[in-house]
C-alpha cells in the first residue's frame, strides 16, 4: 500500500464517521456564523424534529410498518415533562428520563396487539391512538390545561447554566440530534439493522432465517416512541409552553412526510427531509397556508411513484439503471 492508498482506504472505510464529524464541526461554529436568534430557532426546531424523524424512519424503513400517530408520542413526551416539572416540581432532566421510560412502556403495550396488524389496519390503529391522546390533552383541562395548553415549563440547565437562549439550546438539541443520528447509523449498518431491513422486505423469508419478526417490530417501535418522547420533552423545555395543536394527526403526517422525502430507511435522508419540510414555509408562504394538504400530496405522490421515498428512490432508480445496463452488456 502506498501512503496515498492508505489515505484513500482510511477515508472510504470511515466515510460515515467522517461525515458525522464534519456535520458536528459545522454545527459547532454555526451559531457564531449566523448569530441571528430567529434562524437559530429554526435550526433548533429541525434538530428536535430530527430526533423523532430518525426514530420513525427506523420503524417505517426497517420494520416495513407505517405509523400515522407518531405525534402522539411526541405529545406524550412533551406533556409528561411539562406535567412532572410544572405540577410536581421535578428536575427537568429526571422528568425527561421518567417520561421516556413511561412512553417506552406505553408503546410496548400498544405494540403487542397493533403490530400484528399490517397495512391499512395498522395505519388506522396508530391514527386512532393519536386521536385518543389528542382528545385527552384537549378535554382533561384540569391537568393538561386543555386547548390553552401549559405554560411556565422550566428550561433545562446544565452545570448550573440554564439553557434558556437559542444558542445554548442549539448546542443541546444538536448534540442530542447528532448522538441519535450516530446511533441510528450504527443500528442501520449492524447485523440487527440488516435483520430489520429483511423483515421490511419479506417477513416469511426473514423468519425462516432465524429472525424474530414480531419481536423485531416491537423493539424498533418502542425505540422510535422513546426517541419521539425525548424530542417532545426537548420541545417543551425549549419553548416553555405547549398546547395540543402541536400533536395532532396532521403533525403525524408531517413526520411521515419528512421520512418519505428523505427516503425510507435512510438516516441521512431524515436530516434532509426534516430540514426541507421545516425550511420550506420560510421561503414559500403559500406552503404555510396549505401545509396539511401539501404534506398529504407529497406523501401520496412520492409513495405511488417512488415507494422507497424521494431521495433514496431516485438514487435506487439511477443505480438500477446503471447495473441493469452493465448486466446486459455482460450477458
Amino acid at each position, binding site marked *: 500500500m502506498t501512503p496515498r492508498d492508505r489515505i484513500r482506504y482510511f477515508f472510504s472505510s470511515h466515510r460515515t464517521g467522517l461525515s458525522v464529524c464534519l456535520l458536528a464541526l459545522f454545527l459547532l461554529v454555526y451559531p457564531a456564523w449566523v448569530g441571528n436568534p430567529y434562524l437559530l430557532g429554526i435550526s433548533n426546531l429541525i434538530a428536535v424534529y430530527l430526533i423523532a424523524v430518525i426514530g420513525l424512519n427506523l420503524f417505517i424503513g426497517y420494520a416495513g410498518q407505517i405509523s400515522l400517530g407518531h405525534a402522539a408520542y411526541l405529545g406524550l413526551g412533551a406533556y409528561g415533562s411539562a406535567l412532572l416539572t410544572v405540577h410536581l416540581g421535578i428536575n427537568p432532566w429526571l422528568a425527561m428520563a421518567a417520561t421516556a421510560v413511561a412512553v417506552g412502556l406505553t408503546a410496548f403495550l400498544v405494540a403487542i396487539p397493533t403490530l400484528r396488524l399490517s397495512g391499512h389496519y395498522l395505519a388506522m390503529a396508530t391514527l386512532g391512538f393519536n386521536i385518543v391522546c389528542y382528545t385527552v390533552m384537549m378535554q382533561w383541562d384540569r391537568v393538561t390545561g386543555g386547548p390553552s395548553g401549559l405554560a411556565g415549563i422550566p428550561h433545562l440547565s446544565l452545570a448550573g447554566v440554564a439553557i434558556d437562549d437559542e444558542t445554548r439550546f442549539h448546542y443541546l438539541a444538536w448534540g442530542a440530534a447528532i448522538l441519535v443520528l450516530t446511533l441510528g447509523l450504527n443500528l442501520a449498518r449492524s*447485523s*440487527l439493522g440488516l435483520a430489520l*431491513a429483511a423483515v421490511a*422486505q419479506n417477513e416469511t*423469508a426473514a423468519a*425462516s*432465517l432465524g429472525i424474530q419478526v414480531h419481536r423485531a417490530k416491537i423493539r424498533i417501535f418502542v425505540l422510535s416512541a422513546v426517541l419521539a418522547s425525548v424530542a417532545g420533552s426537548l420541545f417543551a423545555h425549549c419553548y416553555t409552553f405547549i398546547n395540543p395543536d402541536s400533536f395532532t394527526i396532521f403533525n403525524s403526517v408531517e413526520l411521515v412526510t419528512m421520512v418519505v422525502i428523505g427516503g425510507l430507511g435512510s438516516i441521512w435522508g431524515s436530516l434532509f427531509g426534516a430540514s426541507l419540510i421545516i425550511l420550506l414555509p420560510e421561503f414559500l408562504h403559500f406552503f404555510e397556508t396549505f401545509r396539511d394538504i401539501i404534506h398529504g400530496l407529497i406523501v401520496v405522490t412520492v409513495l405511488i411513484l417512488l415507494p422507497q421515498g424521494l431521495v433514496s428512490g431516485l438514487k435506487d432508480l439511477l443505480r438500477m439503471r446503471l447495473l441493469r445496463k452493465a448486466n446486459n452488456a455482460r450477458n
Partner: protein
Amino acid sequence: MLEIDGISKHFGGLPALEEVSFRCREGMTTALIGPNGAGKSTLINCIAGTLNPDAGAIRFTGRRIDDLPCHRRPYLGIARTFQNLALFPRLTVLENVLAGLTPEAEQSFVKSLLRLPATRHRERLLRLKAMAMLDNFGLADKARWPASVLSYGDKKRVEMARALVAGPRLLLLDEPVAGLNGAETARIAMEIRRLHGAGLTILLVEHDMDLVMTVSDHVVVLDGGRLIAAGAPQEIRTNPRVIEAYLGRMSVTA
C-alpha cells in the same frame, strides 16, 4: 434425522396433506416428487415452520419441532429455499447471504446501537464468510448489486448460498432448478452432488427427473396430499402407482 409422522394440513377444509409419514436418513438425499398441487411445498413449509401442520408430529434429531416457532428452526440447523424466490430485493447480494448468518450475528439492540469494536470485528468475520460462500457460487463479483437486478438463475443461486452459509444440518430445497436453462441446471446439480458428497442431509423437491434420479438415495411420492410410494429411485421409476399418478399430467421422462 428427520421424521415426518402423520402430518396433515388443510386449507379452508380442503386437504393439502393427509397423514403423510416418511423419514429422511442422515447424510442422504431424499427426493420428494409428485404432480403440481400434490402438497410438496406445503410439506416443506411445515418442516421449516412457515406453516403449522394441523395434525401429526415432525421430529428432527429425535426432538419434536412442529410446535417450535419458525425462527427457532435455523438455530437447530434447518435451512430452506423457496419455490418462488424469496430474496430481499433491495438488499445487496452480499446482504442477502449475510441474512442467512442471523443465528451467528449480534442480537443485542444496545450493542448494535453502540457498534463497539468487538461487534464490528464479529461483523467483519461474518462478511468474509458470506463472501466466501458467494465465491463458491460464482457470485462474488455481484456482491454489491441489489438482488432485484440479478437474472433469475443468479437469484436461485443466491437463495442456495443464503441457505447454506450458516452450515445447516438439513437442507430443504423446493424446486431449485425450476425455470433454469440447461447450463444453470447443471451447475446447481453439481452443487447438490457436492453437498451430498460432503454428507449433508437434503430433502429435495424437484420435477426434473434426471436430477432426481442421479442425486437421490430415496424417493418419496406425493399425490393429492397422500403419500403413494416411497423407495429407491429405480423402484419408483417403474412403480405402477407412480406412473398412474403422473399419467396425463406430466410424463416421467428419464
